[in-house]
């Protein structure tokens, strides 16, 4: 018996069903001409329950309380359920802020310290027992309450940095809560002025031109105080009862396994109206989506599939519609940058973006051997920087699915400069010459010693997983090329984080993904005051710090870009770290998915896409 590929069977069935549909339509047409017309209930033009999107998470979620959620995937669900004052334009590149529940962009005072934000009227939370059967409208008080929750020490939110040291009076309220053990949610905060139900005036302690981006962050979503107080645990967190004003609501949740979200039938009217970026595919998306009311999709089913093979097979078998392709699986799906013919033949679509991330190789600037700002230390680090072939690492570790970075601000992020060229390039011959010049002599074993003859060995720390091992191998080769002895040390992630924050690691490959798409989020990685936070190389260069502080007072634009250039050159001069790469993010979708384009910052695109029910 001849076996049939499931896809061929599907096609045959679809062909049959299309024929059947054609007959039915003809009959229906005949009936319509011969039978008297009856009144039909008008179908809503959005949230069609027959349009079901099946997608996956590769990691289990933890819970859905915007202030308390820590992981990416739970935040994706939060993004569907809750709403921020601002969000991102679906197609714009670099990412552009647009209003979400705000009624227009904020009014900013001349000194850049006061933001006046108007809220759209008539936005309601999805019904919940906490509201006692009444419709509950969203007001600016909900945002004030939600912002306060982030600062509540009891919740121990990881998002404190969004608001800390920014809003007049908020830090003081948090400090009081630390002393008293209770956060006073009724206390007025001078920096969060409620002008009326629909107007919020935010007073900042210093100018911050990234505030709209901060307000677009998922943790800054509005929650209703009644809901939190009804469902919160002893820590003040309500992870299992998310109630928001967003396009979807959580209908079913099997922890760590499955989430079903249904479209919110009361979602405030939002029409798909985005402008094309330079990407030629945008026109196709606009043609398919423009003018539609969002969301078109009526239901989203999210399955947690932890294993690569299971995810890929489920996608290939058409059990899921949307699938993020990681570098490790890419050879099974791609020929170089393009989809393999069998996927193209099936109409599989791919959206590829460069992640707004920077993978940086750092050396501990506080280390007595490799750190410091003296000439011979700078020469040593510069040589190590030049010894590493980033492109080779991309080829080996990520199967070529990343781009090397010349500038610390990656593409798609405000402040990126595609024309910038780093003064540090792969050049092992120059690296060797530099080490020779500064007296790092090679011994009989072929490895170099310090100029004073003491041993020279670097410890490269990586995670205990295959990626970490591969990266360590590539670095070993780089160090061998310049005669520096390297020892790899593999540790669990928690231990690495702990050691890193205490400036105890010598070298690591550290990825950083944008929290908000502005250059500041990357330039702060090397700011001296961020040591023990996210300045992992423990860099403290006074010239850099001075310029960084200056840049913080500036709005994005050519003037600030010039400053960022100078700061980047300073980092190159001291060879405090070597810039690495930004990986591709590739999303595959079934032919029935319409208008999908991976957004660099937003976690999900379920609101902006559609499903073709006939495919």
């Amino acid at each position, binding site marked *: 018996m001849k076996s049939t590929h*499931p896809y061929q*069977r599907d096609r045959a069935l679809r062909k049959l069903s299309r024929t059947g549909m054609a007959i039915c339509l003809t009959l229906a047409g005949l009936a319509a001409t011969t039978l008297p017309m009856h009144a039909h209930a008008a179908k809503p033009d959005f949230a069609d329950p027959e349009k079901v999107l099946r997608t996956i998470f590769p990691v*289990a979620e*933890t*819970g859905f309380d915007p202030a*308390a959620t*820590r992981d990416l995937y739970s935040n994706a669900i939060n993004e569907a359920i809750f709403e921020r004052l601002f969000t991102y334009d679906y197609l714009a590149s670099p990412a552009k802020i647009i209003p979400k529940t705000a009624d227009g962009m904020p009014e900013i005072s001349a000194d850049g310290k006061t933001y006046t934000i108007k809220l759209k009227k008539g936005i309601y939370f999805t019904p919940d027992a906490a509201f006692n059967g009444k419709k509950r409208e969203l007001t600016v008080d909900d945002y004030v309450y939600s912002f306060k929750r982030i600062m509540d*020490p*009891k919740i*121990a939110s*990881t*998002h*404190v*940095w969004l608001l800390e040291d920014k809003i007049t009076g908020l830090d003081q309220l948090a400090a009081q809560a630390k002393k008293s053990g209770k956060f006073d949610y009724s206390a007025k905060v001078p920096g969060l002025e409620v002008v009326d139900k629909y107007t919020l005036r935010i007073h900042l302690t210093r100018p911050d031109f990234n505030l709209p981006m901060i307000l677009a962050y998922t943790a800054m979503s509005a929650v209703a105080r009644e809901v939190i107080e009804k469902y919160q*645990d002893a*820590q003040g*967190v309500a*992870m*299992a009862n998310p109630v928001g004003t967003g396009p979807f609501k959580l209908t*079913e949740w*099997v*922890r*760590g*396994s*499955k989430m079903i979200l249904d479209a919110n039938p009361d979602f405030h009217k939002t029409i798909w109206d985005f402008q094309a970026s330079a990407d030629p595919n945008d026109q196709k998306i606009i043609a398919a989506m423009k003018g539609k009311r969002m969301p078109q999709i009526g239901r989203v089913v999210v*399955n*947690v*599939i*932890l*294993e690569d*093979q*299971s995810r890929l*097979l*489920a996608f*290939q*078998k058409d*059990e899921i519609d949307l699938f993020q392709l990681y570098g490790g699986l890419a050879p099974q799906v791609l020929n170089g940058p393009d989809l393999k013919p069998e996927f193209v033949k099936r109409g599989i679509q791919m959206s590829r973006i460069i992640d707004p991330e920077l993978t940086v190789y750092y050396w501990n600037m506080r280390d007595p051997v490799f750190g410091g700002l003296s000439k011979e230390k700078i020469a040593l680090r510069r040589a190590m920087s030049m010894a590493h072939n980033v492109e080779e690492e991309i080829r080996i570790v990520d199967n070529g699915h990343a781009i090397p970075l010349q500038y610390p601000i990656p593409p798609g992020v405000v402040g990126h400069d595609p024309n910038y060229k780093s003064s540090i390039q792969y050049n092992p011959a120059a690296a060797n010459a530099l080490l020779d010049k500064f007296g790092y002599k090679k011994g009989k074993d072929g490895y170099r010693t310090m100029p004073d003859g003491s041993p020279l060995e670097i410890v490269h720390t990586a995670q205990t997983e295959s990626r970490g091992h591969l990266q360590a191998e590539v670095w070993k080769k780089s160090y061998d090329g310049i005669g520096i002895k390297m020892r790899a040390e593999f540790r*669990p*992630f*928690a*231990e690495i*984080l*702990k050691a890193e*924050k205490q400036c105890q690691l010598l070298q690591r490959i550290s990825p*950083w993904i944008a*929290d908000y798409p502005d250059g500041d989020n990357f330039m702060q990685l090397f700011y001296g005051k961020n040591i*023990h*936070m*996210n300045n992992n190389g423990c860099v403290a260069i006074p010239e850099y710090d001075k310029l960084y502080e200056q840049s913080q007072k500036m709005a994005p634009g050519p003037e600030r870009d010039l400053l960022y250039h100078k700061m980047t050159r300073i980092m190159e001069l001291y060879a405090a770290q070597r810039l690495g790469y930004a990986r591709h993010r590739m999303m595959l979708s079934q032919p029935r998915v319409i208008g999908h384009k991976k957004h660099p910052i937003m976690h999900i695109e379920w609101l902006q896409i559609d499903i073709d029910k006939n495919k």
Partner: protein
Amino acid sequence: MTAYILRRLWQMAPTMLGVILLVFFLFNWVGGDPAYILAGKMSNAEQIANIRTQLGIDQPYYVQLWIFIKQIVTFNFGNSWSTGEAVSSIIGTRLGPSLTVLIPLTIIETLIAIALALAIAFKRGSLTDRSVMIACTVGMSVSILVYIIVGQYFFAYKLGMFPVQGWGNHFAENLFKYSALPILIALAVGVAPNLRLFRTFVLDEVNQDYVRTARAKGVSESRVKWVHVLRNASIPIITHVMSNLPALLIGAFLIERFFSIPGIGREVILAVERSDFPVIKAITVYVAAATMFFNLLTDLLYQAVDPRVQLK
């Protein structure tokens, strides 16, 4: 009998104490500091200290150990550090899916292994016996990972006989639709070692005097096999099966992971990845308690199967 049971229960106390100490010190020495993960990437020392206080891991070790012991005595392990879900709820909700796969698997696997062991042991040295033994050896030499990857690829994806992965809301759907392939794969892996072991148990009996006597008395071969031999071979078989039962509580890590079954095995891996100590210690303590309980039950069953066994 009662005195024996009470004595055995009393003897469990030092064993449990050993488990508690082992888990506690292992976690604290090699488990990493979860506060650094929970604090997120933009955290400072003050926030990390705040989280450590909330988790109670800033307390001296003897205080943390005392809390752990109190949790065991009260059966209240608190909430997961990463999700906030009550540990009792985690175990309660994840156990069902694991048992949906593992109970039928254990029953079918044991029955098949016993039946085949009896069948081939009575034909020792024959072509059938040798072929089955070779097949078992080959089967056992292949990693379960290979069975899963190949089984999922061919039976689920290529042939479309089963879903690649998933879990539904109804028992029947889960058992017959989603668990069928995982059970088949686990059977392919599990029958071979059991069959070899049980065959040895049966072979130990077939040459005994009582078998010869039974045959001399004209007892039919099937009665010799299924009544006389099986009953005497039951004690080691029961020991083996019962010693595997506590494993039901920790699920089947790989099977659950590949087939997206929201069971306890997958939860254990997640808890380890997240340094979620409340979940790890609860499951470890329950498994230890179950192991001791099933050991006791095994001893009691010996007497039921063989009246000559005396419990002292």
